[in-house]
Each structure stands twice: as structure tokens, then as C-alpha cells.
């Protein structure tokens, strides 16, 4: 059974509703809005994805699966223009919105207009900047014209950020009043289930959408997506007690997950996406301040991390195996690469190693010795004191502690700092504790490419992305690394239409970052889902949300 009461001592009320008819999803972060383009987190997109669909999505084999598209554009079928500057999509003809209105090309065009309207302020608009305009060929065909040659034509209207909104619902809210739109809270979509009730921050209740193309094949009459609480108890609910059938993103230490899983109610499904936990090394000195108060300024290179030997020693001093095995377990595996997915573009040329002796030797060679016998290496009066920051998260704090222990053995003094995530990732230019300001020597966090095309992701190490006071700390090159060779490669990659050549460029860029120890990749992280033993059809892909194929989910009684 799946309702919470089936575990209780009195069974009668579980007959009230056949449990197979209801699917209980548990998200420890609760959705607050059901418009993915206005949402502030994946939890919102997840809940929206049940009702809304993109044109197509990549599955985990990197094949495009059509949703609202009738077929996938290719060079062969003429969908992809030879010059790489446009793409033509054919849409399904028999699709209806959940309120019965037919779905047409106008909806796609409207969605583009809505996303890019600056007054609306959508969170996805950055992705759509590459589009010049969209032509409506007929009611079920559109042509997207790009501003430049665009090998990654599949980054728009595809996957997580590509969900199509109904024009007739949002038409009058395409402006400053977008937040009043009822469709934000009670969306009308083309997806398999539609929303019956939504309490922001708490629960979404769905029912089967009678207008869905394959309505007869749906596994459930009703879906309940409950939010709130913490990850551990969410895991407990699926794995140990069976109070829920599915739970999303279980960021729980693996030994706890394992012990919960042994109860037998559910199983853990890992999904190795693109997320990679990395240590960023500051190339500038966080302790020196410019006259106008700027720390980590390009004017002052880092006193010891600007030395490649020191960086190499640092990399050697990190025991990735221990971190992966003891802390992450099924949640991650050690990696030495910056780009970890899709597999085709992962570099085969890198390795990692844990060798404290070798690290010590490198430091000695570089002239960092403990001359004053205080246990800390120094050179020219500079002591190897460093601040290591990350966000508040048990796994990260433990990772920090493990690394700190090795570094202190090596003769560095490490101060750990953990910052509230809402501050750390806020991008607030006024706050010194953000990843952008990087007022520390090392920092730890996870990110990755959201799209199989890693070009945007690799851009984060180009010179013009360095956040400084001058550009009010915008830009993603937090390490403040600047290498003209790397920048040239990046430019090449954006215009290269030949997939094989483009792949080689990406790998080369990855190798520059890794072999120079500009970034220290630690863990290729898996997203872990808890799935009831009897729930079938869950098939995860790194390129879309976990409920992307919820129409195929079934539950054996």
C-alpha cells in the first residue's frame, strides 16, 4: 500500500480509495509556483513538468524524444538549416490543452515572447537570447532563426527550460502583471496530469488529464506531490515506511540511505547527471585590499596559489577516494574532469592521485618550507594560511574537514567557513560572502551544464567572465583565471558546426583547466531518487526533470 494509513494499525480506511489510484510524491523542498519560467528552483520546475511539456527532450542515451514535436529536426529531414542559423519544428496536430483548447504554433511563439519580455522577468530568458525571431510557417510548423551560427539549436524549447505555456491563459499577463496570472498557480498544460489543488509551499494535487493524448494509458487517477521537511525523513518515507512512493533529490549521506533502504520498502535510483563538486582555487589574493576596498582583486595575484607547483601539491593532497567512498557512497564517484556528461565529451586524458609525500616534495621544491617551526609552511614571510569556504550542507562540511586534515598534515593552516546557501549563492554584489566575491582561498560547490552542449558551461573560465568591482561582481569566472589560449578555443567552439571537431575543442578546454589545476574536480555527483519497490517506469535522464516520463509510471498492486 502507499497511503500513510496502510501502515497504521487499523486498516479499514485504506479501502476508501484504492491505493493504486494515487501516486504519492514527496519533495523535501516544496514547490511554490507552477510556472517554470518564473520559478526559482528545480522543485518548481519538477512540479510544473507534470502538466507542461517541451517540444522534445534528451533521454539518457542523448537521443531526442519528441513531446509536442511531431518529429525531431535533422539535417536529413531539412529541419536543421545547413548554415546552422535556423531550425524548423513540426508540431503534433491532435494535442489539446487540459481545458480543451487546441495547441498550435501560436502557443510556442507566445511562449518565446513571454520568456523574453523583460517586464516579465523570467528566469529562463538567458537561454533564449540566441534567438533572432520565430516564424510561423503554418499552424503546426515554426521556424526559429538564430542570431548567429548555432550548433546547439537544441537548447531552446527542449528539456528543462523548454516547457510551452498556453497562449490563451497567459496572453493578458504578458507584462508587469505576470505575477497575478492564475496560470502560475493552476496551470493549464498538455501533460499527462492536471492540477486540481495547489497550496504553495505545501502540496500539489493532480488528476489524470482527460485531454491527454494517451490518457487511457496513465497509471494513476490522482497524484499528490507533498513538499517540506528534510531530505532524511523524505528518504525514510519512501525507503523505510512506504508513506510515499517517490521522493526527489535525496541529499542524504549514503550510509544513512543504505540503512534505510535495507527496510525493503523502496530502492534508491541514482542519476549521474552533469553535476560536479569542485574546489575552486582563487588566483587572486583575498587578503589584500585595493584602496577602494576590493578584495580578491586582479591587481594582486595569489601569494601561493598562483604557483602551479603549489596548486599541483594541493590537488595531490586531496583524497578523492576517501571522500567519494566514505561520504558520498552511491551519491557520487571521484572524477578528474571538469565536463562529466554527456559521456561523448568527457576527456580521457586526465587522472587524479592522492600522494601527500609527493605533495610535500613539490612544496619544498617551490620553496615553501616551515622556516620558523610553527608547523606552517612559509616563504618570504608569507605563511600558508588559507580560508576554505562553502555553503551549509552536512556533506560539504565533512568534505571540508577531510581536506582540512590532509592540508594541515602538509603544513598549511586551514580555516573553515560555511555560509548560508541563500547568501553564498545569492549573487548579491553587496555581500562579501558570495561565490562571486570569493573572499577566501578555496571554495567548494557543485554545478554543471544544463544542456548536452557544454559551451555555456565552459564559458565560465573565460577572461571576460571574471567578477570584479568594476563590473559589480557579475560573471562566473570566480577563480579569476585568465588564459588567452582558452578564450580563443572557446570562440572556436561556438561556431564549429562539425560535431566531432567541436567535441575535440571541448575536451581540450577541459584539459587546460584540469591539468593546470585551475579547478580541482572532486566528485561526479549523482542525483538520488527514492522509488517504491512496486513503482515501475521511472527512467531518469540528466537532460530533463525526473518526472519527464511520468505518463509511463505504473504501480503494481
Amino acid at each position, binding site marked *: 500500500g502507499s497511503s500513510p494509513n496502510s501502515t497504521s494499525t487499523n486498516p479499514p480506511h485504506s479501502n476508501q480509495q484504492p491505493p493504486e489510484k494515487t501516486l504519492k510524491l514527496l519533495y523535501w523542498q516544496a514547490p511554490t509556483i507552477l510556472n517554470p519560467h518564473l520559478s526559482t528552483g528545480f522543485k518548481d520546475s519538477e512540479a510544473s513538468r507534470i502538466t507542461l511539456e517541451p517540444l522534445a527532450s534528451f533521454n539518457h542515451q542523448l537521443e531526442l524524444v519528441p513531446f509536442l514535436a511531431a518529429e525531431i529536426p535533422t539535417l536529413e529531414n531539412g529541419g536543421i538549416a545547413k548554415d546552422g542559423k535556423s531550425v524548423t519544428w513540426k508540431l503534433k496536430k491532435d494535442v489539446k490543452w487540459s481545458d480543451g483548447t487546441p495547441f498550435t504554433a501560436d502557443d510556442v511563439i507566445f511562449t518565446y515572447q513571454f520568456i523574453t519580455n523583460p517586464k516579465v522577468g523570467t528566469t529562463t530568458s538567458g537561454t533564449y537570447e540566441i534567438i533572432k525571431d520565430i516564424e510561423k510557417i503554418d499552424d503546426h510548423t515554426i521556424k526559429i532563426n538564430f542570431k548567429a551560427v548555432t550548433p546547439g539549436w537544441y537548447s531552446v524549447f527542449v528539456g528543462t527550460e523548454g516547457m510551452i505555456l498556453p497562449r490563451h491563459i497567459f496572453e493578458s499577463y504578458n507584462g508587469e502583471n505576470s505575477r497575478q496570472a492564475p496560470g502560475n498557480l493552476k496551470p493549464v498544460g498538455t501533460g499527462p496530469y492536471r492540477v486540481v489543488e495547489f497550496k504553495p509551499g505545501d502540496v500539489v494535487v493532480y488528476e489524470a488529464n482527460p485531454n491527454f493524448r494517451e490518457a487511457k494509458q496513465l497509471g494513476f487517477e490522482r497524484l499528490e506531490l507533498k513538499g517540506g521537511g528534510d531530505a532524511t525523513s523524505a528518504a525514510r518515507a519512501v525507503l523505510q515506511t512506504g508513506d510515499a512512493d517517490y521522493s526527489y533529490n535525496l541529499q542524504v549521506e549514503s550510509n544513512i540511505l543504505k540503512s534505510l533502504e535495507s527496510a525493503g520498502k523502496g530502492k534508491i535510483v541514482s542519476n549521474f547527471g552533469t553535476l560536479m563538486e569542485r574546489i575552486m582555487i582563487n588566483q587572486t589574493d583575498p587578503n589584500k585590499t585595493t584602496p577602494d576596498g576590493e578584495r580578491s582583486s586582479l591587481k594582486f595575484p595569489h601569494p601561493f596559489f598562483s604557483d602551479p607547483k603549489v596548486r599541483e601539491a594541493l590537488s595531490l593532497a586531496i583524497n578523492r577516494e576517501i571522500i567519494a567512498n566514505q561520504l558520498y557512497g552511491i551519491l557520487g564517484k571521484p572524477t578528474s574532469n571538469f565536463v562529466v556528461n554527456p559521456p561523448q565529451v568527457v576527456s580521457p586524458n586526465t587522472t587524479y592521485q592522492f600522494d601527500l609525500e609527493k605533495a610535500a616534495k613539490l612544496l619544498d621544491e617551490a620553496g615553501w618550507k616551515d622556516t620558523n617551526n610553527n608547523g606552517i609552511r612559509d616563504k618570504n614571510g608569507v605563511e600558508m594560511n588559507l580560508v576554505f569556504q562553502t555553503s551549509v550542507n552536512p556533506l560539504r*562540511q565533512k568534505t571540508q*574537514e577531510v581536506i582540512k586534515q590532509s592540508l594541515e598534515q602538509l603544513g598549511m593552516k586551514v*580555516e573553515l567557513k560555511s555560509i548560508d546557501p541563500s547568501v553564498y549563492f545569492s549573487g548579491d554584489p553587496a555581500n562579501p560572502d558570495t561565490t562571486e566575491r570569493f573572499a577566501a582561498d578555496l571554495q567548494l560547490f557543485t554545478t554543471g551544464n544544463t544542456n548536452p552542449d557544454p559551451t555555456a558551461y565552459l564559458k565560465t573560465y573565460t577572461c571576460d567572465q571574471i567578477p570584479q568591482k568594476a563590473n559589480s561582481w557579475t560573471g562566473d569566472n570566480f577563480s579569476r583565471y585568465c588564459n588567452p589560449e582558452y578564450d580563443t578555443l572557446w570562440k572556436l567552439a561556438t561556431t564549429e558546426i562539425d560535431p566531432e571537431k567541436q567535441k575535440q575543442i571541448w575536451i581540450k578546454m577541459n584539459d587546460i583547466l584540469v591539468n593546470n589545476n585551475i579547478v580541482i574536480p572532486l566528485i561526479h555527483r549523482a542525483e538520488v531518487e527514492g522509488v517504491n519497490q512496486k513503482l515501475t517506469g521511472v527512467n531518469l535522464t540528466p537532460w530533463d526533470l525526473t518526472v519527464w516520463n511520468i505518463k509511463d509510471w505504473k504501480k503494481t498492486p
Partner: protein
Amino acid sequence: MTVIKPSQPRTLIQTAWRQFKRDKIALLGTIILLLITLAVIIGPWIYGIRPTEIDFVNSLSPPSWKHLLGTNDLGQDQLARLLIGGRVSLTVGVAAMVVAILLGTLVGAIAGFYGGIIDSLLMRLTDLFISLPQLPVLLLVIYLFREPLKQIAGPETGIFLLIIIVVGGLNWMSVARLVRASFLTTKEQDFITAAKAIGASSKRLIWVHILPNVLSPVIVAATLAVGTAIITESTLSFLGLGFPPDVPTWGRMLYDAQNYLETAPYLALFPGLAIFLTVLSINAVGDGLRDALDPQSH
């Protein structure tokens, strides 16, 4: 006819102590408290294992001769962490209490003594603090002052100062109300008029005459405040606003243990017991002190 019975003159402290000694529970509380204090002060020196030492081979091992209270998931020795963490928790508890009591007494005393406009202004201020949502204020204060304090006092002392100021600074209101009410009644008593008649200044009236007489409710509030502060600190750790993660306070240990309740219950048991014993004995001492410090009760 009054006869003066010859006996040794006693000071208030001596009488109080005599009275206190008779209160068995209070005495037991004092002893436990002293033991705990002693343990956290000298314990870490005597107990050889470093609290930060990571040892994955021995992670999550139950209490044994090697690790008296077992180890956590990183293989760190729990007893060593408990002893070191106790230093922080106890000092935070006591210091935050002192801040709260000082602030509350000051505000309450001024409001109760001077009355009128000053009183109503201060009481409105108290209302304001009561209705402030504490979490955002915490976030702001810690954000605004963490860096400057770190520059002055170093990372651990800085955050320590901040936490006691913040926890204390948001818990003085009930004390202020209490002190004000006692002030209002005490200042009407004859001995205050008598002191005025010999020309005592306001300062003297407050410090010498009224304050000692409103002390006993304050002491009870103070003992309660220590417990609250220790627990608030654990909630702060839970929000990531507390000490650096490698400083194992009791609250933090309890928080870390919550996921291991089934597999390793001892992880929660000992910090929980430590908090409980401390709060319990402080309260017992407070109760005893209240009775003992009231000269009329002997």
C-alpha cells in the same frame, strides 16, 4: 522585653549559604554543575584524543574502551568532542544569559524607577522587540557584524561574541518586564522613602536599595535563560549561523546525531544527556538560590 541571644553574627552570604546547604537538590545541582564545568575545562587536556581527528576505519563505533563514548560518522571521538563542545556550549549559555539579564535589568530598572515618559518609551521598545521576528534579525546581525568582529577577535571568538550578543539581545524582554514590575512595587516601600530622607541619590537608590531586592525573580529568569541559550545555539547551528562546522557544540552534536538515531543512538544520547544535566542542575541551583537569598525566608 527583648533579649539578644549571643551568637556569632552572620553576613547575608553566610546565612544564604547555610540555607542553601540545607536544600539537598540545590546542593546536588551545584555539585553536578561543578563536575561538568571541571570536566570541560580540564577534561580535554587529560583525555588524550584530539576531537578533530578523522578515522574512517573506526567510524560509527559504539562506546568501547578505546572510544569511551563511541565515534561519529567521521570516526571522531565523541567524548573528546563532548568535552571541547561543552566549553563552547557552557560559555555561550552563561554569557548569553549575562547579556540578556544585564540588558533586561537595565531597561526594567530605568523604566520602573523613573516612570512617566521614559517608562512608556522603554516599554514600547520592549513591545517592539517582542514582536520582531527573530530569525531575519539574526541573519542580518550576523551578516553585518561577522566580518568586522572576525577582524578584531578572530574567527571563533568573533562568532562567539556575536552569538552571545544576538541570543542575549533577543531574550532580555521578559526580564525587563519582570524587573520593572518589581521596581514599581519596591520603590513604594518605606525603606526607599527612608533612604530618600537621608538624602540618597537616585543612583544609590537603584543600585544599593532596589536592585538587590528584585534579584530573586531575576535569578530564576537567569537560570532558565542559560538553558534557553544552549538550546538556541543548537538551533543556530541548525540554521548554519552558528560556529564554524568543526566546532562541536552540544547542540550541534545533537543535531548531527539525529540521522543516526536508530543505527547509533549513543551519538544523540550523550550530548542530550549533557544538555539535560546542565539545564537541570542550573535550574536546581537557581531555585535554591532564590530561597536562600531571601532573608525573610530563614
